């Protein structure tokens, strides 16, 4: 899995490439953590995200909660069909800002 983070204006765009599973989820978490601070705006770009498991979901949820707690913004975009279906099944689609 690869993570590329670029800054676009004030927003940090986190492009996740590959599988977000039990093994790789911690990496994402570690990579995103520095960017979570007051009023931060983070975008998870999942265009190249092939697969997500519950571990990945957990990271997404915790990121959401942390940002919510410090008045940040969190957006998830470009989910592919399979991945989106996972978000749907788990009801994450409803609680997250998915575009």
């Amino acid at each position, binding site marked *: 899995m690869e993570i590329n983070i670029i800054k676009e204006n004030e927003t940090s765009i986190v492009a996740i490439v590959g*599988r977000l*599973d*039990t*093994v790789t989820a911690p990496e994402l978490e570690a990579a995103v953590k520095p960017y979570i601070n007051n009023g931060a705006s983070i975008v998870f770009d999942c265009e190249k995200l092939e*697969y*997500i*498991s*519950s*571990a990945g*979901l*957990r990271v997404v*949820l*915790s990121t*959401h*909660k942390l940002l*919510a707690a410090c008045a940040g913004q969190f957006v998830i975009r470009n989910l592919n*069909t*399979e991945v989106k*279906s*996972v978000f749907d*099944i*788990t*009801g994450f689609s*409803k*609680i*997250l800002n998915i575009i």
Partner: protein
Amino acid sequence: MKDSRKRLLSSLSTRLSLFILAVTTTLMIVIVALNYRSSRDLVEKESIEHAQSVLNNTILRIDNVLNSVETAVQHISLMVLDNIDNPDYMFEVTRLLLEKNSYISGSAVAFEPYFYKDKGLFYSPFSYRENGNILDKQLGTQDYDYHYMDWYQIPKLLDKPYWSEPYFDQGGADIIMTTYSYPLYIEGKLFAIITADISLESFTEQVNSIQTYPNSYNLMIGRGGTYLVNKDTKAILNKTMFEDAMESGDDVIFKTAHDMVDGKRGMAEYYHGEKSYLFYAPVHATGWSVAVNCMHSDIFAKVDDMRNRVMMVALPGLLLLVILCYLLIKYTMRPLTEFAQSALEIAKGNFNARLPRNKSNYEMRTLHNSFSHMQRSLQSYIDELQITTANKERIESELRIARDIQMGMVPKIFPPFPERNDVDLYAKLIPAKEVGGDLYDFFIEDNKMYIIIGDVSGKGVPASLVMAVTCRLFRTVASNVLDPSAIVKSLNDALSESNESNMFCTAFVGILDFETGILRYCNAGHNPPIIVSNEGKASLLPVISNLALGIWKEFDFEDQEIKIEKGTNIFLYTDGVNEAESSDKELYGEERMLQCLSNHYKKSPKDIVEEIFKEIKNHARNAEQNDDITMVCCTLLDTDSQTACSERKLVMRNDIADIALLADFVEKLSEESQLPMDAGFKLNLALEEAVSNVMKYAYPEGEEHEITLTVKIDAGKMIFELSDTGKPFDPTMTEAPDVTLSAEERSIGGLGIFLVKNIMQSVEYHRVGNRNILVMKYKL
């Protein structure tokens, strides 16, 4: 208190000081004793001489007086003889004697009875002094018949002049007198005796005045030992020296008294409480003897005194010496205790501990310098050690990484060809060190399995590097090559090239054609593999050794081939197996290996390898593994007897890293079963959740265990069985999350199993024996 006293006593300062004290004291005692001895001898001699000379002087003076009296009397005797016919003239004579000699107090001319017919019985003209005048009288009276007096009778009987035994003067007043009697003869017959009386007063005075020593006393005795001079005045003329001797029982005094009375001169030692000397000498004229006594203590008083003085000065002096020595030594030694302190500090790890500054003497300076040098050495040594350790740790961690890399080079996934039902293979490589020199590899191409097993000479990093090269090279050169010897040759070329370290590698390369069942092989110095027939007969594959790789580039390797029947086990191994040593250096050996393989021939390659491995471990017991152990077991399966059952199995470790294996497995499964992509995705997700759950929670932390996933494809359903030997856990019991909750309200957990349940048609949990079995069914 006792402790500190012990310390004081054993301290160097004390010991040394006491030693010095002992030596000095002994020396001093010897010197003083010797000096004292010789002083005493000297003093003794001197006092004896002194006493004797004093005695002699006194006697001389007494003698002088006595002699002068004798002379005087003899002188006037002539006058008497001249005037014999004139009796009255005798008064003149006696008076003259008195006039001429002041110490004569009385003089008489005593005649024999009736010498002068008319003068009667007692004619004895006598002159005497009274109140400064010289008076006359007749000595003899009725009451005083002088003829029987000692002074008359004795010289008469002895026929010679006689000094009388001293007597108390008639007049009283305690005056002792002695009378010199001089007999006169006419025609041989005594007719008169001239007398001269003298008082002993002057003599007694002289004797008494002899002063030799403070406690000395003097005495004079007469012919019978009667005391004439004695400090005890009552004894005078009253007691004899013999009586005193008898009273005190002193034999020495007794003998001395005899000697004195005999007119001898000498010195006697006697004891009267303490040792005393008695010096005695005779007054020949009268038969008296004068003695002077000195007490031992007096003689030696001065010497003893001096000795005492010396001691009195010396003793405090010695004491002072001891104390000074003690202090001095202690002071000098103080740096030592400070050095001890510094040493303690250094021992604690504080290498820069301060050293005592005191470099007062050579020894201390040397000590200081040595200590200082030691400090610096320690410091640099420790620094070096730290660097070395850090390096070592670095190397070790790198080695660990290298191992991972190495292990990554050899196929690790078993079964490697789950899709094929004609072959099963299992391999195990346990390096002796972190990294090893053993290698194996296999791949299938064009329905042929290419296999290699190799052993690089040596162990560790060097061998592992060659192993890495060889491994990579194999895949490259083996592809599309039909002759094993060609593969071997290529490898040999490569390894022989630039092989400066002369590392070689034994190898066995085989190509197993599944269609024909023929194994073509080329051995390069390696252990011949073991073939176990489908009846369980184990034997060594006949091989031509050829030459190990990397030695000789030009070597011509030969091929061989053999037909492999279905059901045959081919067992490849390195010499780490058959040469596994027990603690008494006994090798595991070919025999045992053959036997074991034969025993378990029916088992799967994995089981076979594990069996061999168990035996090796048992054999080795506590012995250290000194060579890499590599085993590859391959079974040519009988496809015909296989049941038409598509069963796949995946074994994972409880390490989330093996999730990757799962992904591969699912991918293959999807491919073979031609599942739609979303199905594959979903399966992957569900299985990952189930498996990761088990991986995370089934087993205790840090322990490596297996998790087995099997899948059966049957009538439009895929039945997955996930089993583990962990603690009993029923994932189905976990509460499903409430997906309707908001993000804030959502809990992190429980999602996994939710997904599984969601994706799979059914999820069932069984606990069988010690295994958790989760059965998931997926509808195709």
